[in-house]
């Protein structure tokens, strides 16, 4: 299951760092962040609860970059 989210991230390096961190969240199979298109593509593991996974992704992302937002 793939989903694309609109995001707000201010700097290119932060986007890289958030990507690294968010990939490690359990339930996330793959995740890519494009600073340029301001989009985050998430592939969920089968059977993962998307809402809780995304909540965790946001939490991890905020830790790395406080200004990171999922729109």
């Amino acid at each position, binding site marked *: 299951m793939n989903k694309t989210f609109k995001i707000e991230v201010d700097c290119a390096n932060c986007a890289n760092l958030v990507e690294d961190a968010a990939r490690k969240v359990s339930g996330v199979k793959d995740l890519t962040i*494009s600073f340029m298109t301001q989009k985050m*593509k998430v592939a969920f593991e089968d059977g993962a609860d998307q809402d809780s996974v995304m909540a965790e992704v946001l939490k991890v992302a905020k830790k790395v970059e406080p200004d990171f937002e999922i729109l």
Partner: protein
Amino acid sequence: MNRKQLYMLIRIIIALVMTVGLQLIDFAGWPRLALYLAVYLIIGFDILKKAWLGIIHGRVFDENFLMAAATVGAFSLALYEKSGDYLEAIAVMLFYQIGEFFQSYAVGKSRRNIAALMDIRPDYANIEEEGKIVRVDPDDVEVGQTIIVQPGERVPIDGVIVSGVSSLNTSALTGESLPRGVSAGDELISGSINMSGVLKARTTKEFGDSTVSKILELVEDSASRKSKSENFIAKFARVYTPAVCYGALALALLPPLFLMLFYGAPVNFATFETWIYRALVFLVISCPCALVVSIPLSFFAGIGGASREGILVKGANILETLSKVRTVVFDKTGTLTKGVFEVNAFHDHGDNDIDVEHKKAKLLEYAAIVESSSSHPIAKSLQQAYGKKVDRNRLSDVREISGKGITAVIDGMTVAVGNEKLMSEMSLAPCRCRTAGTIVHIAIDGKYAGHIVLGDVVKPTSKAAIADLRKSGVTQTVMLTGDARPVAEQMAAKLGVDKVYSELLPADKVSHLEDILNSSKGDTKVAFVGDGINDAPVLSRADLGIAMGALGSDAAIEAADVVLMDDDPMKIGKAIRISRKCLRIVWENIIMALGIKAVCLILGMFGIVNMWLAIFADVGVMIIAVLNAIRVMYVHKV
């Protein structure tokens, strides 16, 4: 400008005004400190907060930390020295924020520009419900449903036109600005814009499988496929920032300790002062933002600029490979030629040109009528050349002789149309034609009447495209084709292709390409250009697969790395030049940024560079790098 940027701009202006004001009206002592501290916090509180959060979360070394450390350090030094010179700390923070603001504004703006180029997403689809036109989400339209596209609207879903006449603007898809006329029965490609009439179309695909979705997916994914240089810089930044921080720490501690131990410098804080200041300068210079921002921006601008020209590049890494292409291998049919046959000549039994118009017309007429029941491409081309409606009442006794041709009776005469084998079967000796091409022989009432020479039509720009490739630094061009050797060699000579391999079966194409791949030297790359029909394996085997005219061919879009939206071979050279320009600018930025920083860092160590120059090395370099990166977007005249 978004809300965040506006907020930042207000902060910058307040801080600027206050700083200038403080230079004009002089306070002393505590009020002075309080006012400067206020300006400092107005402009820098978010940096301090982020640096603090970074420390808490165990990510100490980032840009925020660099800036916080440098400014807090400068402030503390000023306090300690009781010099009251707080301006430097504020200036560093202020310029850093101005730089960040500029970067965010410029990057945001060019990002939106580029995204707008590529944004062809239709917002809705019109369907008819109880006689009324209703707007629905394109996702909800099923295959086979009828959609209505009004003038000025974007076609949301692929389909076939049921009724209506109009012209379509396909520039967003192909870069081609000439409108394309369409009417009932024609294919309607999503993403194009309906210019004049109302069109009704029956959808042939779901929205998710339609051309427009495929293209959007491709373009959006392209930004996440990172190039080697991007990965290099990301890794570099990870090592670089901590290294600089430790370097600064060492610069603050080691030289003064050394001086105290061996040169009898006084053991007090004053000895450290100069070196702490130099360490702070060092920190300011070292910020890696110029590189981290400008490189993905360059690639994104390159991908965006290329897509405006009808060249879809699947990723930054592909752009990198493209710039190294030195050998281009072409599939002949559909790439260098149009892939349709055209009548080139009429010859009589002595292989001389027939120059009497009515004789030519008669040959063509008979051939077209006899072949009218066949669906072979050659038969179709003959029909097209004939151009009139075939009166099938004149035709009887049609006999198809597999692999040889057709015989039939027209107006009471027995006409045989076919290849040499058919003629020999009728014990006629057809002349061997001197012209390369596909030959159709015609015999009337058992007598040889002549032959028609059909040739695959070369695209008008093919020859120029090959010459153009050579100018763009491609050293070898190769043509692969299933055609007979004389046809292939004649065409290769005409187009200026270096090498040609003819009479190939589809599987042979892969093995020939592999030979070429093996013989390519060093870091140079081999590109294969095909039309996506039957050559998906070759496309994916090459270092770089270029599919052209691939609209609607999912297999080609899937297998290729670069998709040319129209079928003009001139775009290949252009794609290579765009990639070169992009890579050149990337390297310009890397060398410029690292070069200036390295020089400033060394000068900073010896105390030659002060805080002000340090700010330039940081913010100035970043601004130049960003502006330089945006240049990549303008590729129309490349």
